[in-house]
């Protein structure tokens, strides 16, 4: 029919602007995470010029990656949660709770070998999973908003951890765990970052390649729509929060290996730092959009800033100033891009066309 063969001008414009978007390279160039990667590279370049070899050394980067490892594991779970348009404030406390449980179990069993370490790892994972399931159940079934549920479990998990320990950190971490952190290198990478890298890769594969990931995006994008096409939304949400909780349990093991002790008082800002990293990486707080790659870049910005400030002799307090600024700027850019895309890709003005093409 002639009607079909001559689509309205508006449609032609849309089709034209999208046609080049088919190339994966161009689509990549329009992702928020790629822009933020450029920001990261600028920061790295700045410190390289300012501090030279002291910044660009293997030992410096190995230190940075070590500092990022625990947050990276948490960031994977947080990315899933935020893509469903949820939030998980409890990860820091769940990490503390899991590490306390694991340390207590290992202390009671006693010994320094892998057997007792594995028992500790298992109990940390189970503790994290339990918190995640509880969060997920309250959010999906009891319909309490995620912010409230996880704010509650933040408080309860930390409180229980303090009750269990009397507020005193447990230092009974088997030597195999601390040695694993200190001495082991896998493919030339320190062990903790290597383990975190594995988690990141697995998380990326699940998020971007499997049905589980697809449903995560769909629920964040249009929950009712997902329900209508038969996606089991409640079950999926429970699984996503369970994933976040389990990864917090796993991060607890890494933290134990890193510090050789539980860190009851040391995780109060972990949740916010991880959320900031995820959001800087282009994951939309409104759901439906995001990537693990973006989260990785978002994690490195504060870590690199901190290391760089120390090396060039700026007070590390400036890190907070810089990260906060980057966070708000990143979300502002992201939102204006989104709004431009929603106003219609038919717009012909070059800057906006450039910005909206990714949408």
């Amino acid at each position: 029919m002639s009607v079909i063969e001559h689509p309205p001008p508006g449609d032609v414009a849309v089709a034209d602007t999208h046609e080049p978007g088919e190339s994966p390279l161009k689509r990549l160039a329009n992702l928020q995470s790629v822009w933020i990667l450029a920001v990261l590279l600028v920061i790295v370049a700045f410190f390289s010029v300012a501090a030279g070899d002291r910044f660009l050394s293997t030992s410096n980067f190995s230190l940075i990656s070590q500092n990022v490892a625990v947050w990276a594991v948490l960031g994977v779970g947080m990315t899933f949660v935020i893509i469903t348009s949820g939030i998980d404030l409890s990860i820091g406390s769940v990490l503390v709770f899991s590490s306390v449980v694991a340390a207590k179990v290992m202390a009671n069993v006693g010994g320094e070998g892998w057997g007792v370490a594995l028992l500790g790892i298992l109990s940390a994972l189970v503790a994290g999973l339990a918190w995640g399931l509880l969060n997920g159940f309250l959010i999906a079934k009891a319909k309490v908003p995620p912010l409230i549920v996880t704010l509650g479990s933040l408080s309860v998990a930390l409180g229980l951890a303090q009750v269990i320990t009397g507020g005193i950190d447990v230092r009974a971490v088997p030597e195999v765990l601390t040695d694993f952190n200190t001495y082991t290198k896998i493919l030339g990478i320190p062990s903790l970052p290597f383990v975190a890298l594995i988690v990141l890769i697995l998380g990326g594969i699940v998020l971007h390649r499997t049905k589980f990931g697809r449903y995560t995006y769909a629920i964040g994008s249009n929950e009712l729509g997902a329900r209508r096409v038969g996606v089991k939304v409640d079950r999926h949400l429970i699984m996503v929060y369970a994933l976040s909780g389990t990864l917090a349990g796993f991060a607890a093991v890494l933290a134990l290996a890193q510090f050789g002790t539980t860190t009851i008082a040391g995780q109060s800002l972990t949740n916010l730092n991880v959320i900031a990293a995820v959001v800087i990486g282009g994951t939309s707080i409104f759901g439906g959009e995001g990537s693990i790659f973006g989260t990785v870049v978002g994690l490195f910005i504060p870590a690199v800033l901190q290391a760089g400030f120390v090396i060039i002799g700026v007070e590390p307090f400036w890190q907070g100033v810089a990260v906060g600024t980057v966070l708000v700027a990143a979300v502002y850019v992201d939102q204006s891009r989104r709004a431009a895309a929603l106003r219609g890709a038919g717009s012909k003005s070059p800057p906006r066309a450039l910005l909206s093409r990714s949408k």
Partner: protein
Amino acid sequence: MTTPILEARGISRAFGHVQALIDADFDLYPGEVVALIGDNGAGKSTMVKALSGNIAIDTGELLFEGRPIKITSPKQASMLGMEVVYQDLALAPHLNPVQNMFLGREIPRKGPLGFFGFMDDKAMRAKAKAGFTELGGTIRSMTAPVGAMSGGQRQQIAIVRAIQWAGKVVFLDEPTAALGVVQTKNVLETVRRVRDKGVAVVLISHSMPAVLEVADRIQVMRLGTRVATMPAEGTTVEELVGAMTGALDYSTKKGPK
């Protein structure tokens, strides 16, 4: 072709004190487009929800291909070959047309990878492209998110998704309500093509000219029941409005088939 593919006989449904359907009838024959019209609150949406398994009926019976049946869930309706295109389309704006089309019914990768939830993107894209081509769509990009597309294109994606899975019946709830003139024409053309594939279409619409243009038969509802059934051919907008408002009294005539 004397057996309706879907029939409602004397169905009633109350929501509290509000009687949404009162002894209402409906019938749909294979390969026809039936328009369901009526004023706000006449019971059109309730009728469609009852037929598609979204609400239960209090009394009366439903027949699918001549056999009495209880449709208790949208999933069951889907399995019978019936799909609904909701007014809000139920698309995920961040996903692309292919991902939307297969949402909830992804084609798994062959072998053990499929067991772990990996998807066969190639096969899904090919099937989606074939579906769009068949309906002569204006969707050019299979990779752009649906949220960036025009209202007409989104409508088309929702319709193509529905008929991809609906072997027998598609319900369209106000498909042209938010569309411009040209896009409305596109959608009506799509409806015709769907019918030509042999899929029966139920069209809920307020737009009388659109209804008269594309429907084979028109069933008019008023105050929770069907008050008239008429062929689209030879019927005027005035007659339809008369039946909807009760100004003209039509006794329900049997369909043309």
